[in-house]
Structures are given as structure tokens and as C-alpha cells.
């Protein structure tokens, strides 16, 4: 089999998913695509089972908060094709008010705790997750601490503010 290339993956995915796939670039050779939340399960199953792609290994699930964007949250999946050693990163941007995305625990069981961790820190609801509750923080916590609106330090502290350095 020929070595899988990013270009091949891009062509294959755009052929299959058309408008719903957006290519975000290839930072440091890692192909990054984004899709819409309603098709994420379909995309991941396709990436896993399609004979020419076979991204069989789920490396990581996490989320990022972009408070200034229209769609505030990005859920980031890292997949790995262990047969040909190529990785792909998939981003799904979600609305800020009630970020919801369907779970992938039915595709990889290992997604269970990764999604729980993401829920714990960002409050992303993974629909259909068998056991979606906090994992690292205490159950009584009523915020999602990794969101950018929760500062780490005293917000009144000015000696480290960026404007002192011309930014």
C-alpha cells in the first residue's frame, strides 16, 4: 500500500463529506481539519473503518476555550493510524451557551475518561456518554474551571499585565 499522505486524506474526506469538512492547515505536518458537531460521529467512524484511512487509535480528546469567538469551544480529537504512522487532528467548534456534542465512547471505549475530563474542565456535554460526571475535580464544584473566565491569579494584580510590555 502506498504511504498515506495528508493530501490523500484531504481529498478523501472532502470527497465524502464535502462542505462539512474544513481544512484548517497542517501545522508541523499534522493535518488539522474541522467539522460540524452533527457529523463528528460519522466522521470518526469513517476515519476508523475506511480501508484506506484506518485511524484506529484514539490518542486524545480535549477542549479549548476561545471566549472571543462566535463558537466559543473547540473539542479536539487526536487520532493515530498505527499501521502507517500518521496522525490527524479534528476540531469541532461548539456554541458557548450549551456546548453539546455526541459521545465517541461507542467507537473507542478509551474515550470514556477523556470525555469526562473534558466535561469536568470545560462543561462540554457529551450526549450518550454512559457516565458523564466530574473526574478530577470534586463533585460539589459548580464551575468549569478551565474556562477562560476563571482567572488563576488575583485579577487586580497589574504588575504582570501585558500593556506594561507594549502589548
Amino acid at each position, binding site marked *: 500500500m502506498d504511504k498515506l499522505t495528508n493530501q490523500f486524506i484531504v481529498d478523501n474526506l472532502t470527497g465524502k463529506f464535502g462542505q462539512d469538512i474544513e481544512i484548517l492547515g497542517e*501545522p*508541523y505536518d*499534522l493535518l*488539522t481539519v474541522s467539522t460540524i458537531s452533527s457529523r463528528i460521529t460519522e466522521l470518526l467512524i469513517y476515519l476508523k473503518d475506511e480501508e484506506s484511512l484506518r485511524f*484506529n*487509535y*484514539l*490518542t*486524545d480528546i*480535549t477542549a*479549548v*476555550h476561545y471566549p472571543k469567538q462566535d463558537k466559543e469551544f473547540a473539542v*479536539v480529537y*487526536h487520532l493515530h493510524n*498505527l499501521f502507517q*504512522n500518521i*496522525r490527524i*487532528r479534528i476540531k469541532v467548534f461548539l456554541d458557548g451557551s450549551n456546548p453539546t456534542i455526541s459521545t465517541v465512547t461507542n467507537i*473507542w*471505549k*478509551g*474515550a*470514556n*475518561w*477523556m470525555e469526562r*475530563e473534558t466535561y469536568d*474542565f470545560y462543561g462540554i456535554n457529551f450526549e450518550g456518554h454512559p*457516565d458523564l*460526571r*466530574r*473526574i*478530577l*475535580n*470534586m*463533585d460539589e464544584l459548580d464551575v468549569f*474551571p*478551565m474556562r477562560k473566565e*476563571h482567572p*488563576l*491569579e488575583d485579577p487586580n494584580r497589574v504588575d504582570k499585565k*501585558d500593556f506594561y*510590555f507594549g*502589548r
Partner: protein
Amino acid sequence: MSSPITKITPNRPVFEDNDPQDELITLNIGPTHPATHGVFQNVVQIDGERIVSGVSTIGYIHRAFEKIAEHRPFYQITPLTDRLNYCSSPINNIGWHMTVEKLLGIEIPKRVQYMRVIVMELARIADHIICNGILGVDTGAFSGFLYVMQEREFIYEIYEEICGARLTTNIGRIGGFERDFNEVAFQKIEEFLERYPPVLKEFEELFVRNRIFIERTAGVAGVTPEEALDYSWSGPILRATGVDYDVRVVSPYCSYEEFDFEVPVGTNGDVYDRFMVRNAEMYESLKIIRQALDKIAKEPAGVFHADVPEFYLPPKEQVYNNMEALIYHFKIVMGEWETPQSEVYHAVEGANGELGFYLIHDGGRTPYRLHFRRPSFVNYQMFAPMSAGMLLSDAILNMSSLNVIAGELDA
């Protein structure tokens, strides 16, 4: 078979479920139980000695590293990575340095790469010593643990020569090392290569053909490759199932592609195979260190960091006497770096598996987002499901052979 009866309800105190008249007993293992080797809890329901179901509770030493990292410049994040897998902190440190170097596009001299390889392989040996030694202790063989623990102590002495610290090493800097290996360090590494193989041989002879050990471990907690990949396992426990996935080989970093070593794999994925894989990996690590020392001897001496003054702190006397060094020093300390806006995922083969750093950088002084892909966290989630139906004593062995390090589990 009917589905297991379970009455553990998440978020409710366990004693509410624990009816003494019931045929099932709810048992707390942890948070601070000697058998867990770390601060995490398992609530199991047992029928006699057999586990019916279990729930893992983790997060007892969660320290919000990802949040802290969003508020710290790159070089101040290294001490945080120390405290992930504290049994092999140099791997975490250097993995983090390499992530930043990948982001900044820093080219590392060969000699520094070989030095890093030495330190990382020493750390791998130190980690595997703990895991296999403790596994011996859990099966009732205490003496082997003491033999090898002395050698771990010696590895810590080597760390001390290299960076001054023993456990949380904060080793290296972005761009290289903070200082060259001194003569004593090289002597000690040579001495370690001399003295460790016989000790390891002795250690392994206590276990490998030991009937008690085999009966306690062989066939216990066997995992198929499909299951292991489904649960995103990585590291020695994945290789014990027969999958030859090693980040050092598939995506080489630090010039690992130049080294001649083998990736040991098991067949059954049981506790015995995991022990054997770790044991064999220690020999491979020794081979790698030997080769790295020989390679260093051929490189120009005295090179211990890349020539990147804008990212690597200048020596202190330069700062006091040299204008440019002072400027660079100021810019680095105040975070005035010219850094690209990008995102990078870099993985190294930690002692427990694929240790990944996912760094999103917006050009500011701190990472916009830093996520640690921690192998212990990902590996451990299979523990509770796979314990169902196991004997309690086997589950303890299973736990210790997963080598879950609480610091890495909780981050």
C-alpha cells in the same frame, strides 16, 4: 450469565449501600491504601474474594497543572512536568522542552540529543525498577525490590551530578542543558553500565522462573491487543499484548532512529508479560545508553546547548558584563519572545506510554492552552471494568503492573 449485581451509586457515600446482611460486601481500597501505591481510590463490591464490580475515583492530588500552565512562561512549566510522573521526571522535562523546541523550530546539536537520550533512558530504567520491584513486593518477594532499589538510588546520584536534583529534576532547558555533564557524571554513567546488568540479572532470576511468581502472575488480567487499542493503551502494557507501538520507533525524536535497539513485545498481555516486557526494556535501555556514550565521544566536546541566544539564558557573568547577553536575559525572563502562533502536538515514549504535549500558542508570554496526554490516566480507565470477575489479590497485582503514578493520573 446474568449481568453483575452492582449497587455502587456514584456521588453517594459508599456506606449507605453497604448492607451487612447483604451477600455482597462493599470495600474501599484507598485513597491511602498500601496496595494502591498512590493516592487513588477504588470502591469494589466483592463476593467472597471475587470482585463483582468496581468504581475508580481519582483526582485526589489534582493540582490544576493545565490551568497553571496557561499563566506561566514556557521555562516555568518544566517544574510542573516534573510532578506528572515523578518516577521518571526527566522524560517529562525533556518531552516538554522538545515540544517548545518543535514550536520554535530550534535545531538541537547531536551531542545534546545523545545526552538527552542517556538521561531519558536512565529515567526509564528507574521507573521500570520501581514498577517491577513493587510488583515483586505485591507477590510477596520483598528482597528483589531492595536489590534494585539501590541501583535506582545510583541513578538519582547521576541526576544529582547532572542537574543537582534527585526526584523532581527540572533537568535541561529549552535548547539544551543548563550545564555540561561533568567528568563525575560520565564516570558514574559508565559505572552504572558496569554494575547494573549483574544486579538486574540477579533480580530477574528471582522472578522469571519462580513458580510462585508465575502462578501469581501468568494468565492474570490478560488483555487482547484489540481491547488494549480500544482503550487507547500505550507503553509497556500495550506492548505486553503484542502490539509493537513505541513512540521512539514510530516517530523518532532525539535521534532515536540512529540507535540499535529492539522493542520487546509480549503475547498474552497479562501481568507476567508486562513484567517481562519492562525487564527486557531495561536491557534495551542499557544498550541505548552504551551507544549514546560512544556517539558522544565522537562529537565535539563541550557542546551542551543549541546556539539560540534568544531562547537560552546566557551565563550570569555574561549578563553582568555584556550588553547583548543582558538584553537576551531580560527578554527571556520577561517573556519577550518572538514566538509563532501555532499549535503543536509532540509525543515522547514515557515510562508508562505515550506522553503527549498538546500546545496551542497565540504568541503571548504563556501558552494559550496546554494539554498533557498522560499515559497513566488513559491506561488506568480500563482497571475497574477489567477487575470485574477477578480475585481481589489478582486485581492488586493488575493495578501494580499498570504502574499508575498518581501524579500523572491526576495532573
